[in-house]
């Protein structure tokens, strides 16, 4: 227990901050993922073959390639790409981009591919009559989407989105390889300096379990809220 004390003697406060970092990265990644899903879901549902191909390419490649490989691409390629752009503007110094942003972006792209599939499935399983009805009523496109399609889509998508959230949360452990101090990285540091890896990695596992448990509780409440009347 001494090892987990707060303050200078233990790792309690460090691990607490690291847990907040994991939550922050997961949330940022999830939001970035939603933005990607917002772009790619219409592409996947589009009748245009070319747009369709782009949408399918994104979800197939990202879901078929290991997360770690995607993270390495961003970790090693991210600063290179930005330096290339900067060099066009005459700036030739080394630029290191923020580990938080690179990590969130890499995980966000992965999470986005899963979210895209979830949204696509949800929209496709909405009753066709709903689309026709809102057309017949002469609703404008924004009203059609936000008032008719989206509320129904969210209800159908929520159970699967909770899976995406779990995947995203667990994937953030992988960005510890880039040096961002989240739960895994902090446990690695603590395990190295105390030579007690079993304790710290088990504690890390416990923290992840706690996070998944709490988020499940929260999502279940949301699900109840959105399935009112069903």
């Amino acid at each position: 227990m001494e090892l987990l004390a707060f303050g200078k003697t233990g790792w309690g406060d460090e691990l607490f901050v690291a847990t907040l970092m994991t939550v922050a990265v997961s949330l940022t990644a999830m939001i970035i993922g939603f933005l990607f899903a917002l772009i790619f879901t219409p592409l996947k549902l589009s009748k245009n073959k070319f747009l369709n191909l782009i949408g399918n390419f994104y979800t197939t490649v990202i879901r078929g390639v290991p997360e770690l490989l995607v993270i390495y691409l961003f970790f090693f390629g991210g600063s290179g790409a930005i330096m290339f752009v900067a060099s066009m503007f005459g700036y030739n110094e080394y630029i290191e981009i923020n580990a938080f942003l690179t990590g969130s972006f890499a995980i966000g792209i992965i999470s986005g591919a899963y979210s895209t599939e979830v949204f696509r499935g949800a929209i496709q399983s909405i009753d066709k009559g709903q689309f026709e009805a809102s057309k017949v009523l002469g609703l404008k496109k924004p009203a059609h989407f936000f008032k008719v399609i989206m509320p129904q889509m969210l209800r159908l998508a929520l159970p699967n989105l909770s899976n995406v959230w779990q995947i995203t949360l667990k994937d953030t452990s992988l960005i510890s390889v880039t040096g961002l101090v989240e739960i895994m990285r902090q446990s690695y540091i603590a395990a190295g300096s105390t030579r007690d890896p079993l304790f710290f990695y088990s504690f890390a596992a416990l923290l992840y379990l706690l996070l998944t448990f709490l988020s499940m509780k929260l999502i279940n409440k949301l699900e109840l809220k959105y399935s009112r009347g069903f």
Partner: protein
Amino acid sequence: MDFDLMITSFPKLLNATLITLKLLSLSLFFGLFIGLLFAILRLNKNPIINKFAYGYSYVFRGTPLLVQIFIIYFGLGQLEFIRSSILWIILKEPYWCAIIAFALNTGAYTSEILRSAFQTIKPGFIEAGKSLGISNKIIFYKIQIPIAIRQSLPAYGNEIILMLKGTSLASTVTLMDLTGVAKYIISTTFKPIEVFIVAGGIYLFMTFLIHNLIKFLEKKYSYLQ
């Protein structure tokens, strides 16, 4: 775009793919037995056995695979009684540690897939078997298991693909699998995009093969419909 690098790194990456495939097939093999065992335990009516099996799958599905590998590879070596036992012959090798972690992980997911497959078998099939006077054991092996396998094929196909991606974590415990070699080439040449295209292409090709194999099996065993 450095095409020379792509061509020269291809054989190295292909070589590393062999390790990835070995890790995948061994962990799936052991994982299937673990999964079947825990699926049967989950269906047991004894609440203690039942809860134990549920706890197993909850813990392994609720924590990242990376933590599981680290606990087994770094953590278990710390215990004196493990280091002095025969288990140490296996546990000192990162290769076997990775396989143990993968097998336990995929076992947890497989147990969930099989459990739901067992639960969705129509009671009529079992009743039909019983009324024909077939013993419970044979009903289980000849009726329930084949139907459950057919039912769980699509979900299990997804699990194989997830596990294929999961084997990339073996690179974090010094194994030179496809991702490990790809990372090595990236960090020595600083050409991430080229290497990503080749390594990612190999992974995608394997995913494609698995996907089609499962589709073929689904068609072959769709006698129920």
